[in-house]
């Protein structure tokens, strides 16, 4: 793997592979060559910082030390390009219910319990090896939640691919979107189903700009007793470090540095080894054993081994406890003999966790792991000095100050923001004369059509707590859902509503409004089922941050998320940034995925999207505006320019408050948010799930062209079914703008606005919406 730069690298006369590297005398060109040859992916400035550090200590670094810095200073690990913007707009969001910010955020659930949440990306590995990449993505996010002391209870997977029928030219080395989607879904299915954590929400988005840049975002929610929430840190000297779970091998070497660069045609050849191998049947008992030693009070800290492997976990755990550590690399259980110490140190082999525990508890901890046949080994101990030292075969191969190693560089790179499209005159597309056919076309758009093909692959009910499922409606008919609800505690009706929000098209046209859109959508989905939005975790997938326009999109999207979250008083206790989602053919759509979690006071009052009762009234809540830019209609029929929908947080907040009050009083029989395809698509979807028709008349809405009323994607809007005998009470309590637009009944969806606009059988709507993905994927 290493091609020694002979004059700079000298092999030490020890019975294993160890190199001393003479960077002290290296010039810039040689430093860069070293960075490349060793796979460090560091810049010349960063290499110079390292040079200075070792010059002060008057010694040459070992390959183990340089590799360790390469991991710790990667974009993936230290957020060097993004931190400034996150600090400006997200980190400052304070919330009294935030209990911890570690590998996952932890929020108060009730007086005795907490929930943990986190979302991250596994984009590059999934582009190379979709099945394994997605599976180990799930594995990683589950460990992030587990290491807070929380039992994982739900998985969420937003996925982004090129069009399934993509016939264009893919970037060199890239795989076809249909192949990628098949592999990714199978990877999530086989891993998630085996570890017994329900996959309950997510979504799939398709666009040409994801061809070659597929995105695999993986989220996890967990539940814990507040008293058992654990730190990702050692407590102090006297603690030993216990490595538990899978063995360490050559899989997953340089995963983080690979994730911190653009994909190119040689990526597969060079980086296949960066994709880890997942083993759900090691993970499943690992979860049991880790939670058991934690709830028995045997450990002081716990952290997962993810990006950078041991090299990151040891330093971060020790430093968080204001300590250092010594580790004996000989003790690490290996998959095969002959690994060099740097490989053991940076390997990202899966299913591993690190425990910090007092020495006196070691025997009892090992017993718990022994019952589950999960390896557990003491590999080191905590020391007072904030230094990490490694030995291998009795030789010290590594000694570094933690402050230098883990702090990493931070950049304020230049940004540049494009003009929003509102400055471009709206060009409304030519629509078919029969708007019914436009509606059917949108329902069949893969971005809108039913995802049942995927949903049925995932066990969304294991653990027996899924109260509101991903698909709603009459048994066997399966219309769409907005949010999924989990009832995490046996003796309480309190629930968690979980939903995703993201609109990459809005973000690409107006990144600030795109960021706002993610939060609005997650919130309105949560409100739809009867939840009160409580916290967010974001996964920000963007292109190369060294390009000012890419970083400009990032900056604006983060500002949009932060502004709405702040206005609504939401917490954002965790998140993830993924840059370099870019190939020679261009960047992915800027994709600011938000995973929102809401509190449901009483799950028995939850509401689903399917229409329920003939004669009930239908109300539209929220203001509709001429905001067509980036809409599904414009994308399908070729519209240009116009306004990207903006968010008015006060209006969103008022509407959600009123909706929640009305649901509490059981004045709402069904509720569905308006998103892709606007009012027309939302109405159709409610009909599909409920197997009921609607007679709608839009003339009571604000004066707008009929096609705008039907297809505008203005935010903060819902359709609500109100029981006939409760309309008066509804009208009293709904203080947000609302408008009666129709009545439930019959077998047809008929929409009028002076003229009849849409006139179609529910059966036909169902066919258009339900079948497309089955047809392509088989």
């Amino acid at each position, binding site marked *: 793997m290493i091609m020694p730069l002979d004059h700079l690298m000298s092999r030490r006369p020890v019975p294993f592979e160890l190199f001393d590297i003479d960077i002290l005398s290296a010039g810039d060109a040689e430093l860069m060559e070293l960075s490349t040859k060793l796979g460090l992916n560091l810049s010349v400035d960063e290499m110079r910082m390292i040079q200075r550090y070792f010059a002060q200590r008057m010694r040459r670094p070992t390959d183990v030390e340089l590799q360790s810095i390469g991991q710790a200073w990667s974009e993936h690990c230290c957020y060097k390009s993004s931190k400034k913007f996150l600090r400006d707009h997200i980190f400052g969001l304070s919330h009294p219910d935030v209990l911890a910010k570690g590998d996952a955020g932890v929020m108060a659930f009730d007086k005795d319990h907490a929930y943990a949440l986190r979302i991250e990306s596994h984009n590059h590995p999934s582009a190379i090896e979709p099945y394994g990449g997605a599976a180990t993505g799930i594995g990683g996010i589950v460990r992030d939640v587990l290491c807070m002391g929380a039992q994982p209870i739900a998985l969420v997977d937003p996925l982004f691919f090129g069009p399934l029928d993509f016939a264009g030219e893919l970037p060199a080395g890239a795989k076809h979107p249909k192949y990628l989607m098949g592999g990714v879904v199978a990877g999530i299915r086989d891993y998630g*189903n*085996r570890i017994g954590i329900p996959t309950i929400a997510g979504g799939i988005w398709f666009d040409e700009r994801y061809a070659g840049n597929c995105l695999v975002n993986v989220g996890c929610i967990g539940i814990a007793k507040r008293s058992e929430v654990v730190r990702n840190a050692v407590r102090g000297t006297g603690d030993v470090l216990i490595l538990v779970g899978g063995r360490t091998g050559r899989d997953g070497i340089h995963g983080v540095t690979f994730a911190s660069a653009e994909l190119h045609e040689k990526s597969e050849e060079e980086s296949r080894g960066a994709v880890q191998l997942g083993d759900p049947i090691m993970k499943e008992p690992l979860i049991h054993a880790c939670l058991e030693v934690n709830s028995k009070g045997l450990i002081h800290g716990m952290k997962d081994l993810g990006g950078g492997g041991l090299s990151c976990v040891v330093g971060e755990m020790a430093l968080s406890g204001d300590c250092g550590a010594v580790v004996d690399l000989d003790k690490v259980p290996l998959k095969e003999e002959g690994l060099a110490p740097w490989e053991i140190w940076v390997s990202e082999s899966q299913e591993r966790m690190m425990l910090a525990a007092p020495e006196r508890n070691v025997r009892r901890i090992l017993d718990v792991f022994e019952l589950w*046949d999960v390896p557990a080994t003491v590999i080191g101990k905590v020391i007072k000095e904030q230094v990490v030292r490694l030995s291998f075969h009795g030789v010290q191969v590594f000694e570094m100050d933690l402050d230098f190693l883990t702090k990493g560089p931070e950049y304020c790179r230049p940004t540049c923001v494009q003009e929003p499209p509102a400055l471009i005159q709206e060009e409304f597309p030519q629509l078919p004369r029969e708007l019914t056919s436009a509606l059917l076309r949108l329902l069949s758009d893969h971005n809108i059509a039913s995802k049942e093909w995927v949903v049925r692959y995932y066990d969304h*009910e*294991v653990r*027996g707590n899924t109260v509101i499922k991903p698909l709603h409606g*009459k048994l066997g008919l399966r219309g769409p859902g907005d949010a999924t609800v989990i009832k995490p505690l046996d003796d309480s009706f309190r629930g968690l509503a979980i939903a995703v929000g993201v609109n990459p098209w809005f973000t690409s046209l107006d990144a600030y409004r795109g960021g706002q859109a993610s939060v609005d959508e997650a919130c309105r989905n949560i409100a739809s089922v009867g939840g009160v939005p409580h916290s967010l975790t974001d996964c920000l997938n963007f292109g190369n941050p060294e390009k000012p326009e890419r970083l400009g999109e990032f900056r604006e999207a983060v500002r949009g998320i932060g502004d709405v979250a702040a206005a609504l008083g939401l917490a954002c206790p965790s998140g993830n940034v993924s840059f370099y989602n870019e190939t020679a053919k261009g960047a992915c759509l800027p994709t600011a995925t938000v995973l929102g979690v809401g509190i449901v006071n009483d799950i028995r009052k939850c509401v*689903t999207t*399917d229409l329920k009762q003939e004669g009930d009234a239908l109300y539209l809540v929220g203001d509709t505006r001429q905001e067509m830019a980036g809409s599904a209609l414009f994308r399908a029929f070729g519209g240009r320019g116009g306004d990207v929908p903006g968010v008015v947080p006060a209006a969103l907040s008022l509407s959600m408050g009123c909706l929640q009050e009305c649901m509490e009083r059981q004045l709402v029989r069904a509720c569905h948010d308006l998103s892709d395809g606007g009012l027309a698509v939302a109405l159709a979807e409610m009909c599909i799930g409920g197997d009921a028709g609607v007679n709608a008349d839009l003339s009571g809405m604000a004066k707008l062209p009929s096609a705008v009323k039907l297809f505008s994607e203005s935010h903060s809007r819902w359709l609500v079914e109100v029981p006939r005998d409760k309309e008066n009470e509804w009208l009293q309590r709904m203080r947000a703008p609302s408008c009666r637009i129709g009545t439930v009944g019959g077998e047809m969806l008929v929409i009028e606005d002076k003229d009849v606009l849409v006139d179609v059988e529910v059966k036909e709507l169902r066919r258009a919406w339900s079948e497309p993905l089955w047809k392509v994927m088989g």
Partner: protein
Amino acid sequence: MSRDVRVCVLRIEGTNCEEETARAFREVGASPEKVHLKQLLHQCPKDMARDLSSYDILALPGGFSAGDYVRAGAIFAARLRSALSKELEEFVRSGRPVIGICNGFQILVELGLLPSLEGVMSVQPEAALYVNDSARFECIPTLLKHENEGSCLFTRTLPKGKVVMFPCAHAEGKLMLPQEREPALLKRLEDRGQVVFRYVDPQGRYAGYPWSPNGSISSIAGVCNPAGNVLGLMPHPERVFHRYTHPDWTRSALDPSGDGDGRAIFQSSVEHVRSQR
């Protein structure tokens, strides 16, 4: 006060429905315990060792035991058979209730405890739960018609002909009997009252795909042994213990916190144990 009804909820790595299965037994007043196979084999610290004979009910929950990388349930069954077959056979002969749900059903078939065509426990499996006709993992609601005449200890509180909704989540649930003797063996199962549940559609008719998610012979979803104390079924009654986990509860006038369709299974077996004292 009567003695606790002790339920052994048996697990190994990859068993993953033990929490909700144990909870279901707990909510009908029994005392379930999640027990690792190694505890029954005494391969553990002394205070954790357990004996199968000390339990009143044995439950094999769903999941992917040992990963199900061979045939589903085969590895768990092989470990049980090699170390514990005498105790298991004794447990069944004593008439104590044994239930296998989903992966548990697959294990019971691999063990030869079901369909129990010849004797209590066959040396070789007499049937198979094969890959679904759709070749897909299917997580969907299924409707089951109760077909048992009253022999099955787990369905005594369900009237014959009653249709219940238990959801499915499996890739290998197609019950198959040896092809050359299929009609005769199916008739034997029926004659001896061993068919407990069949998949039906919303009109109550015996169903094909997707209401039968797997293409099982004669739409069979669950079978018991001739004595009625061993039940195996692919759908998950523990997932619909309460009404609020039924997929369409928001469409129903029933109290969401009321009983779900699955409760009857756990209730019946625990009541049976109590009635025997």
